[in-house]
């Protein structure tokens, strides 16, 4: 049941102050040196206006690029293990685009499938999302082709849509209601506001693509598409749904720690055995893995796509591996 309000632009600071008083950190898009970054803010005027998206996704709030999982001290013949307390600061993601907000679901599918990841869950429990609908798009966006949309509510606790003088505020979840209750004066009655968002025409049918992929595993298209791919991790690291990680040990004679870090299936050594054997030794195989993981294995294993159509990968790629373009070409192969 829709719980909608009018949030005046001028009341944003009231809301921010209330959230800060409640002990929450606010992360929002911030303009810096020509980039849009996701940074801590305290006042509404720090938030970037008119930006499309941040470069890095907000997944870092729940799945940081480096996270300690455990530590230990060493003595001759003895090891003392220390469990790591998940670091979960109460955080509000403000201004998150609907595509990104829906991405947390894909992270949750992996982190909580079969066994539950305490680190991710602690951060997600402490996280709330105030999303921002899109009134602009660029050529890299394709949210509507993967079940999303510029005004979609999935993943947001409150979704704001720009209107004259402020925002239409849809309060969607218990977390959203708890935030609104911190600054009730900011959430005025909805006088019948119209939710206007940009149009993003659907470019392809993902279910048809998933079916088509079953026949394309050995197709030469992956070698062709991946010729210019550099095999770096830019696409994986900016992606809101990419979740592959590495476990890294750092230690000296007295003790050490085990860390979880982001990793990318595009890297040459990702699947290499200690013997030197590498099941995915060509970039073509690694590019194919990226596509299949998101559009074939995710639907098969978790009943959802592993892509939200945000286009961050396309924008971040140094050689313009335009995902939407490659998917369309694959669908027609």
């Amino acid at each position, binding site marked *: 049941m829709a719980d909608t309000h009018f949030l005046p632009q001028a009341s944003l600071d009231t809301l921010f102050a209330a959230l800060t008083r409640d002990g929450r950190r606010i992360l929002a898009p911030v303009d810096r040196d020509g980039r849009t970054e996701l940074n801590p803010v305290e006042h509404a005027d720090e938030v970037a206006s008119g930006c499309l998206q941040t470069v890095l996704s907000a997944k870092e709030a729940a799945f940081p690029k480096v996270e300690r999982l455990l530590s230990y001290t060493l003595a001759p013949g003895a090891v003392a293990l220390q469990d790591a307390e998940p670091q979960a600061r109460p955080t509000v993601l403000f201004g998150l685009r609907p595509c990104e907000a829906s991405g947390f679901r894909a992270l949750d599918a992996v982190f909580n499938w079969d066994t539950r990841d305490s680190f991710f869950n602690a951060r997600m429990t402490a996280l709330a999302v105030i999303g921002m609908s899109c009134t602009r798009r660029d050529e890299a966006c394709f949210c509507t082709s993967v079940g999303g949309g510029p005004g979609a509510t999935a993943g947001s606790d409150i979704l704001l849509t720009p209107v004259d003088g402020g925002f239409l505020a849809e309060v969607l979840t218990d977390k959203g209601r708890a935030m609104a209750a911190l600054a009730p004066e900011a959430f005025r009655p909805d006088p019948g506001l119209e939710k206007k968002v940009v149009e993003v025409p659907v470019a392809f049918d993902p279910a048809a693509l998933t079916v088509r992929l079953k026949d394309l595993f050995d197709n030469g298209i992956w070698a062709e598409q991946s010729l210019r791919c550099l095999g*770096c991790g830019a696409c994986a690291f900016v992606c809101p749904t990419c979740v592959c990680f590495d476990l890294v040990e750092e230690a000296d004679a007295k003790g050490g720690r085990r860390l979880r870090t982001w990793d990318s299936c595009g890297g040459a050594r990702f699947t290499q055995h200690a013997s030197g054997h590498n099941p995915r030794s060509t970039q073509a195989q690694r590019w194919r893995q990226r596509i299949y993981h998101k559009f074939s294995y995710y639907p098969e294993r978790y009943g959802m796509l592993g892509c939200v159509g945000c286009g961050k990968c396309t924008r971040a790629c*140094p050689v313009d591996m335009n995902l939407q373009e490659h998917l369309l070409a694959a669908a027609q192969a």
Partner: protein
Amino acid sequence: MDVIATSRQLLESGAVQAVIGFEAGTRGIPRPAFIRRAEGAGALVFDANCTQNLGTYLTRPEVRTLGRVAVTATPDTLRAILQLMAERQLKEEDVLALAVDATGEALELPTAQAVEEHLAMVAQVLPDRDREALERLGRMTREERWAFWQGEFARCVKCYACRNSCPMCYCGHCTMDCNRPQWVAEPSHALGNLEYHMVRAMHLAGRCVACGACGRACPVGIPVHLLTFHGEESVHRQFGQRAGASSRLDYALSTFRPDDKETFIR
């Protein structure tokens, strides 16, 4: 003949098995393209926006197996080709460089000597923005410079877009891949990021052809190219040579000449 006609002819005659060039990409920005059949040559473009250093593809196994390749080459790419030859990674007969002049005319440069002579007529000039940035860094105190780079590296996510877009980072087993010993901390925390960028800058001193591809590739906008540019300027000052000037260049940091400056001996 322009790039398209030249490429078409080269592919039709079998003189090359592939042309590595640029095609129009998303939002009109050119991106690398691999043309294997003459009919595909019409997609090729070559203008001031073609900045990715195509030399980075010349050492990749998937590209080597294509056969002899032609490469549409900016001066940066030509320098990369010469430096790769100097480092014995490329043979003259494996690559045909296609320089493009101001009128769009393609010039075939089939030998190292042809490339060297062509480059001799093109002044290697740092872009203003980068020269100013280097000057700004040079005016900083050590503490200020340290703080600047610490701030920049904090954004690094160790995606290695910089390394992978560099024509000189062709090692099949990069220092970063080595875990016995673990030369460089792998995670993208402060130490891991600092170690990586410092090691890369050192590995490129005397080898960097100053194309700036690394800095452009960085998705979070760290100007890593300034590190390697600075290394290159430093080598030029101390040893009087520039990477990419010739296909027979010794590596500055492992070559001893009796007239090397010994200003470090005090």
